[in-house]
């Protein structure tokens, strides 16, 4: 055996001498890159311009409104920046901005409870979606190759109908004389209809149903890539199948689990349609609170503050998670 540090490929590699400096071509004039530096710059610019226009600008507008105060006017808040006077108008408006709306959010415990309840509902339904989605994705990934496109299609198929209509349909299923209760009574499992509609359970059912594809697809894509010889290798080394699942399959499916959980958790926190249609008055969710502030109370500044706080609540843990992941990957090196 040779020195492990120097396999024959390494030897070959060490013999390749880098070309002399003067022979390196200016990348801007290189024949292989006709677009040059500016072409590349333009290409990178497109997504950034997109994000700037459609994310950052609306965000700044909402942030600005959240610092304003409600008023009976059009638009329903003050101050309004007088752009006719240029930067001076901006300066004058800025002097009247305040954090009163944020202070208000801390004073009325309705908001606090709505945030906590939303995060809780989103967290539990994400876990439940994972629980339902994992076996589904696993089954899809292990199905015969020729079936897989059909199975993926079946997961995507519900998107062909409007989300709103699908949630409405659940009212018909879950209501007191709905399909579910009728079926359960017909089988004889229950004698009295269950009250499901307008409870938190209905909200969980609605979220799990609606967001299942967002969980299944990333899970499927990571499970489908999983090399089955790794499973065989684990069993060969004395690992029974259920242990192999936890020691090999789950760790390797982790990117899919994380992506799926984010895709379900983030929209679920701000979900409005499902709690509004399926949940009762006792189901407190921030999306509903936001809607009430915005449309019923016409208090745009408070609604904006609610939205900004929600964003911060969601972005900070994600950023922390990403930093942790980057560190962990660097730690490997």
């Amino acid at each position, binding site marked *: 055996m040779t*020195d492990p540090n120097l396999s*024959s*490929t390494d030897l070959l590699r060490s013999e390749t001498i880098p070309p002399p400096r003067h022979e390196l071509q200016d990348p801007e004039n290189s024949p292989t890159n006709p677009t040059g530096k500016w072409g590349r710059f333009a290409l990178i610019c497109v997504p950034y311009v997109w994000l700037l226009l459609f994310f950052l600008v609306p965000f700044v507008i909402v942030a600005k409104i959240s610092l304003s105060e409600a008023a009976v006017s059009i638009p329903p808040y003050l101050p309004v920046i007088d752009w006719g006077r240029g930067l001076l108008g901006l300066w004058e408006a800025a002097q009247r901005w305040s954090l009163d709306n944020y202070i208000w959010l801390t004073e009325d415990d309705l908001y606090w409870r709505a945030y906590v309840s939303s995060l809780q509902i989103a967290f539990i339904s994400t876990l439940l979606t994972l629980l339902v989605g994992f076996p589904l994705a696993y089954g899809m990934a292990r199905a015969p190759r020729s079936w897989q496109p059909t199975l993926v299609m079946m997961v995507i198929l519900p998107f062909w109908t409007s989300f709103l209509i699908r949630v409405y349909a659940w009212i018909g299923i879950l209501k007191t004389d709905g399909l579910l209760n009728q079926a359960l009574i017909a089988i004889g499992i229950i004698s009295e209809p269950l009250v499901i509609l307008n409870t938190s359970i209905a909200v969980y059912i609605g979220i799990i149903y609606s967001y299942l594809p967002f969980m299944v697809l990333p899970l499927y894509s990571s499970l489908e890539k999983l090399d089955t010889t*790794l499973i*065989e*290798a*684990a069993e060969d*080394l004395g690992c029974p199948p259920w*242990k192999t699942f936890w020691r090999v399959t789950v760790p390797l499916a982790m990117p899919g689990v994380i992506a799926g959980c984010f895709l379900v958790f983030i929209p679920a926190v701000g979900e409005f349609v499902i709690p509004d249609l399926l949940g009762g008055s006792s189901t407190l969710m921030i999306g509903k609170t936001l809607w009430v502030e915005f449309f019923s109370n016409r208090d745009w500044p408070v609604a904006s503050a609610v939205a900004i706080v929600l964003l911060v609540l969601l972005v900070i843990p994600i950023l922390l998670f990403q930093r942790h992941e980057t560190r962990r990957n660097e730690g490997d090196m």
Partner: protein
Amino acid sequence: MAKKPLGPVRRAFSPWDDPSEQPFIEFRNITKRFGNFVAVDNLSLKIYKREFHALLGGSGCGKTTLMRMLAGFEAPSEGQIFLEGRDLAGVPPYKRPVNMMFQSYALFPHMNVEKNIAFGLEMDGLPSKEIKSRVMEMLSLVKLEGFAKRKPHQLSGGQRQRVALARSLAKRPKVLLLDEPLAALDKKLREETQLELINLQEQLRMTFLIVTHDQEEAMTVADRISVMDKGKILQNATPGEIYEQPNSRFVAEFIGDINVLDGQVTNKELEDVKMFSSVLGSHLDVCYPTAANVGDHAALAIRPEKMRISFDKPERLGTNAIQGEVWDIAYMGDVSIYHIKVAETETLRAIVANTARLVERPITWEDQVWLSWDSDAGVILTR
């Protein structure tokens, strides 16, 4: 690189010739069907303790299926597999005392080298101190001491191969299964690793079963080779026997290069056989024990390195000589392969060692030469 002391000389080892010896692994009348496809066809094979056995054949010959049945990944459709006399039917892979080194290495990408090697030991519930020392032992065995904390993607192909080997050896299995273990390595590294495998097997005194399509690899590492085709073993013998006494045309042509002449047996006295080759239009003398009788069609097979070429007709007794023209010369460095056109539709190959420098090569293209071989150089093939 400092030269290491050489290991012990490989002594003669032939338990298969000893009728009192019990087989360590026995495949008994194994058939494996996938739907209508018969992957392994009523196959029986005995492998002995401390034997290095090679299953050799082209793709789809059933060699990998046979190995996977021993590992427990596939169940035989018919027949039984015994390990130390115990029937393995119904024993799941994770309870079999065999370990496999996979062709793709199948290293766990989320675990570092140390964790990969420790995996099987953890499954056995060994105390962590012992696991630690066993992992270190394995790492030094494959000379990867400094790599314990690396992840598989941070290793070269050769290093990954050695981690896979260490992992499959860590549990000290009764049998090590090697599924095309060296296929992904470049030629030089592969040759080195072959010798290492032999030394390792001597050192650990374990039974190795290797699956390969590379006949040179099988010849180098194995004590015995089973040449497989279409789910059957055509010949199970030592590398020397396989090469010098192939029992069929398939084996003869699969292992190395060989000239095959079709003919008919015209005379037979004990081992002295006369054959008539219609393509050459001449009678040939062969000294080979064969079951073929006078009148039977058979083939005469001669390895190219046993052929000689000369300008003058060799007059020695017991030598076959035919005339031909040098059709092509393939210069390989150490040897040259001469293609001699002996008939309108037949060329035969002769290998000549290049003992002299290239500048003075006496025989060249279009020369009329005599191609000759001793009567005991050839083999008669009846199937």
